[in-house]
Structure formats: structure tokens, C-alpha cells
């Protein structure tokens, strides 16, 4: 994952110094930009650090190997639900809840109940019954 790590790390290398330059030029008296830039640097270093650590843990992937073959990339990539309607129900429940904020609390409560049902259905969809993973 060296390419991915570098991609995010270079952005950190840019935003880190930019934060210092910005702070210096604004005499450290303008807090919004400094906060936003520090946390933007944090965003990139967080992802870069994670990718670096994950890359260390995993064996070299075919895409990192200059002489890698497409066939080497076969294998298990994780579990993906074949087809599921529950995200749609959850989104619908979320929409009803937000509409409830504008219309009235009674509608929000109805939406919240629908949301609970949708969340439980989604979370347990692949983790219950005979075909649980």
C-alpha cells in the first residue's frame, strides 16, 4: 500500500508547513484557519498512518509488485451482501425523521420507530438464521 500511503502523506507534507506559514503570516491571531488547517493535516496523516500500518501487516499485494500478474489478484476480498433492500428502508426512515423536524414531533417519533426496525434488520441481515456469515 505504499502508493496510497505516499498519496496521503504528501498531502500532509503540504498542509503541515502551510499551517505554520498561515499561522505565521496571520500572527496566530486568526483561529479558524489555523484550526481548520491543523485538522486537515490530521485528516491526511490519519489516513496515511492507517494505510502504512495496514500495509506493514499485509503481504505485498500484486498491484504493489512491478512484475505482478492480474491472476495473482484473485481470492477472497471480503463479504458483500448480494442484494439488500434494508439500506433503502433505513434511508426512508431517516427522511421521515428529518421531515418530522419540520412538520412535528409526532412524525419524528414515527420515523424513529421505523429507523430502529430498519437498523436492526440491516445489522442482523447477514448475522442471523441458517445462512449467517
Amino acid at each position, binding site marked *: 500500500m505504499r502508493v496510497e500511503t505516499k498519496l496521503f502523506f504528501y498531502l500532509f507534507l503540504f498542509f503541515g508547513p502551510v499551517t505554520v506559514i498561515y499561522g505565521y503570516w496571520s500572527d496566530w491571531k486568526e483561529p479558524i484557519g489555523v484550526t481548520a488547517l491543523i485538522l486537515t493535516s490530521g485528516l491526511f496523516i490519519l489516513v496515511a498512518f492507517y494505510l502504512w500500518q495496514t500495509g506493514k501487516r499485509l503481504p505485498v499485494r500484486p498491484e504493489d509488485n512491478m512484475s505482478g500478474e492480474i491472476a495473482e489478484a484473485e481470492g477472497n476480498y471480503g463479504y458483500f451482501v448480494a442484494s439488500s433492500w434494508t439500506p433503502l428502508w433505513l434511508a426512508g426512515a431517516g427522511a421521515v425523521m428529518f421531515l418530522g423536524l419540520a412538520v412535528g414531533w409526532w412524525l419524528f417519533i414515527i420515523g424513529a420507530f421505523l429507523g430502529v426496525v430498519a437498523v*436492526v434488520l440491516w445489522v442482523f441481515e*447477514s*448475522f442471523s438464521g441458517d445462512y*449467517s456469515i
Partner: protein
Amino acid sequence: MVAVGTIVWLSSELMFFAGLFAVYFQLRSVRTDLWAQQTEKLNVTFAAINATVLVISSVWCQLGVWKAEKGQKARTGSLLDIKNWGMREWYVVTYLFGSFFIAGQVFEYAEMVHDGVTLSSDAYGSVFYMATGFHGLHVTGGLIAFLLIIARTFTTRRYTHANATGAVVTSYYWHFVDVVWIALFATIYILK
């Protein structure tokens, strides 16, 4: 896949809180008089105890993660045999500590409102409740996630890798929310 997605989502969450921090610092820089007057109403000792509870809950969470990675979903010995606890027991303890934090925050809000600091009272009240409130909502979301993860250990026959991944990414989220609180606590209660 799930872990990578969670990390990417958490870095976008970081930017969400960045906005709240920016609002806080901006208002603080233009209304130093208001800050001097309102921050005196904060109960720093109480908030420090509450923050400590949240930080400790992260430790229990991590102990649960190590059990999940070993594939041990529940305790093998008796309830008092802490060494042989599984992921489920540690996550229940984490849940209890997290709900203690939320209860403490509700208590703190009641005190602040009693002192006349409300969401609509002034700029300080707005940013105080916005920042701590959004964090509190995140903690509440984490508590719901813990309940679902604990419930999952009952519905599957075997504790699979997919199950453990769910537990691990929930811990990522919990640690993130914890770190955000350390920053918020330093900003609101120590830096003032």
C-alpha cells in the same frame, strides 16, 4: 474493506468536528468578555471525572477488541473470573462507562441551564451546547452500536471473522469519539 471504509469515514468526521472547533475559537477571539464571564459557570472537577470515565471506557473497549481478534466472544469462566472474559463482557463494561458519561453530561447540562446558559442565551451557550451536544450524540450513537454488536454475538452460531470485524470497527469509532472529547475537554474546560 469494512475497516478501511470506517477509517475514511472517521477522517471525514474529523473535519465535521474541525468546523465546531473553528466556530468555538472564532467566537472566543471576538467575545473575550463573554467567555471570561460564562466559563466561570463550568464545573471543571465534575467534567474532569466524567472525561476520565470516558477515557477508561476506551481501555475496556480495547481489551474487548483483543478478545474479539482471538475469536473469544464470551467468557469461558465465571463472571468473577475477569481473565477469561470474552468480547461481550468487556463491551458491556464499556457500555456502562459510556452511559455513565452521557448521564453525567445530562446532569451537567441541567446545572448549566440552571445558571442561565442555554442554547439560545448567548454565543457561548450556543457553541458550548453545539460542540458538547454533537459529541454527546456521537457517544450515544456509539452506545447503540455497542448494543447491536453485543446482540450479534447471540444471533450467530460461530463467532466469525466478519463478527470480529464489526467489533473492531466499533472500537475504532469509540476511540475516535474519545480522542475528540479529550480535545474538546482541553478546549472548553482547560483552555477556556
